[in-house]
């Protein structure tokens, strides 16, 4: 148990800034958090000290440029513990969809008149691809509860407990009507990690996988079932090629159903 506030730096790499809002959106609870957390570096909130030594570095965003990588390596060196927060940091996020393209150079050209002005790495990757990560908080976005619980446990000197349970379990506990069974909706709940509060199914909508793969995801079986609902191989590819396209279990399904799609069109 630390007798002083936990020194925390928040670094942003390639991202939408939405996970940092898990702090700024807390309302009066933020004042409570400040009782045991001292932010040293948090650019959006006005604090700039990337080189200060800290207890915990929270990393939002994926590594997509040389500059991202440089800053990540620096953040790692200055921190006792490093926690990646959000889909971008844990698996690359939506911008990592470019990794799947066969014609990456043309992608830049499609958006920018002068692609030569745009400096970026070949692929857009998760934080753990480059440095040692002590803990990961999954989610797009991460929730206030996730970040607060994690920091509270780290302040208490305890390694945070991971919860990779399937979303289905939470959804069942809430008593939602199963959209997969009753609507034959392509819900990813059976292979997605819990954490969002089963939001989409509680709105009567299929989960689209913001929180990434759960423990032991049986994607093979789920996608087979989806074909039974009338989904074409390419539809299944799109279900997985979204927020966490670079996580290995989803990557496998993308490859598998892309191949089916190609074979089907021959």
């Amino acid at each position, binding site marked *: 148990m630390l007798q002083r506030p936990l020194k925390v730096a928040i670094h*942003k*790499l*390639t*991202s*939408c*800034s*939405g*996970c*940092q*809002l*898990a702090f*700024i*959106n807390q*309302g*009066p609870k*933020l*004042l409570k958090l*400040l009782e045991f957390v001292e*932010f040293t570096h*948090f*650019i*959006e*909130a*006005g*604090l*700039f000290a990337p080189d200060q030594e800290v207890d915990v570095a929270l990393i939002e965003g994926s590594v*997509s*440029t040389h*500059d*991202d990588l440089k800053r990540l390596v620096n953040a790692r060196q200055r921190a006792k513990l490093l926690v990646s927060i959000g889909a971008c940091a844990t698996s690359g*996020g*939506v*911008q990592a*969809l*470019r990794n799947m393209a066969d014609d990456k150079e043309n*992608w*830049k050209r*499609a*958006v*920018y*008149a*002068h692609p030569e*002005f*745009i400096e*970026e790495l070949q692929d857009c990757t998760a934080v753990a691809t480059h440095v040692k990560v002590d803990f990961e908080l999954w989610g*797009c*976005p991460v929730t206030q509860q996730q970040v607060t619980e994690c920091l509270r446990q780290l302040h208490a000197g305890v390694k945070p407990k991971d919860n990779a349970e399937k979303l289905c379990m939470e959804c069942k506990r809430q008593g939602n009507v199963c959209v997969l069974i009753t609507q034959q909706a392509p819900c990813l709940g059976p292979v997605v990690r819990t954490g*969002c*509060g089963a*939001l*989409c199914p*509680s*709105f*009567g*909508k299929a989960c*689209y996988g913001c929180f990434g793969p759960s423990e032991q995801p049986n994607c093979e079986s789920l996608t087979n079932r989806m074909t039974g609902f009338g989904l074409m191989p390419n*539809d299944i590819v*799109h279900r997985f090629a*979204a*927020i966490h396209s670079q996580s290995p279990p989803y990557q496998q399904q993308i490859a598998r159903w892309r191949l089916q799609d190609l074979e089907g069109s021959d």
Partner: protein
Amino acid sequence: MSREIKLNVPFITRVEGEGALQLSAKGDEIESLQLQIFEPPRLFERFLQGKPHTDVADLSARICGICPMAYQLTSILAMESLFEIELPDHIVDLRLLMNLGEWLQSHALHIHFLAMPDFYGYDSAVQMAAKHGDLLTRGMQIQEAGNTLMRLLGGRSVHPIGLQVGGFAALPDKGAWQHARQLVNDAIPAAIQLLQWTAELPIPDHSQDFTYVSLLGEDSYPINGGNIACSNGLTITAQQYPQHFKEHHVSHSTALYSLVDGQDYLVGPLARVNNNYRTIPEHIRHLAEQCGLEFPNMNMFTSIQARALECLWALFEAQQMLQYDVPKGQAHVPYKVREGECSFCTEAPRGLIFHHYELEQDGTVAKCTIIPPTSQNQARIEQDLKQSVKQYGLHHSDNELKLFCEQVIRNYDPCISCSTHFLDFTITRQ
């Protein structure tokens, strides 16, 4: 004696995302000034190609964590116009209610976390908590009212999940509706205090002649529909946007610069208030005028007052809708997908957003263009800086100049995630 200035602010803090500023001056003349936006490119317009139209709202939300709904709704409204979907009134109203929530949380965040420390001499709102907890608490109350409206209709405030083509995934339940009503009612006195507080701020006069652009409200303040009005006299539909607004790419920025008929321009709260002040209900205008606020005006430093005014307007609008029972009826209407092109503009908290889609027969995205507010403001911010820095005076110290420039930039509430990152300030004095 003339001194040579080379100022370099490597990271502009308290903006959404990250950007840098380089200023080079000789004596009293600015030689060059560049707002550099180096938010890494994420290529949304490209990866949306080939996606089913039903995936666009959930993916485009990820452009920005602060105004995700604006991106979702603009894409949805564009497609609904193509599919000729007629929405029942309660869905139209609920979407407006959610828009109000997004404006409230975004404006409250900007005023209290990003702008306020400038007026009290702090680096960060976090450091203000001990001494000015009451001001922060007031801001958080308004922010929470906004977030609650977004959760009511979208499940969560960052990357909400409720919106879809044809309506909502589900309508809100009674308990959540009443809770939102309570928070909105309670936040109104806080927003009145906020408006009064902004009226007392030491606002410098850096009025400039500039062009401003926003949606135009016929009889109500515009948020998610209507024509585009430009202060140069141009009034056009969203479909005509590409004929007048052109983007270009410069080497020092990953955000594209946008010009209207060759001219830089402003979008955002001050542009909206200037174009639509007459549509704000009289009791709110009366209060603003009693406080001594004057709109329309051409001083970007009053944008914080425009934001506060919009907060109060949004809360009164939300209160009116929430006083009725929770709407019943269909959550969404069925529709037929059609091939073709569609465009739409809405007002994100930071200003006008333009979306254009080309859809294939089965609804697959063939092409899309998304123009966020900050890339539209970028050229204007540079022009503003060039004029206001000279007016402020280059004789000020590097640190004073840096703070002044940062404040000028923050007046635009740039959301750099959709275009850039933090401010790295470089000044070169020669």
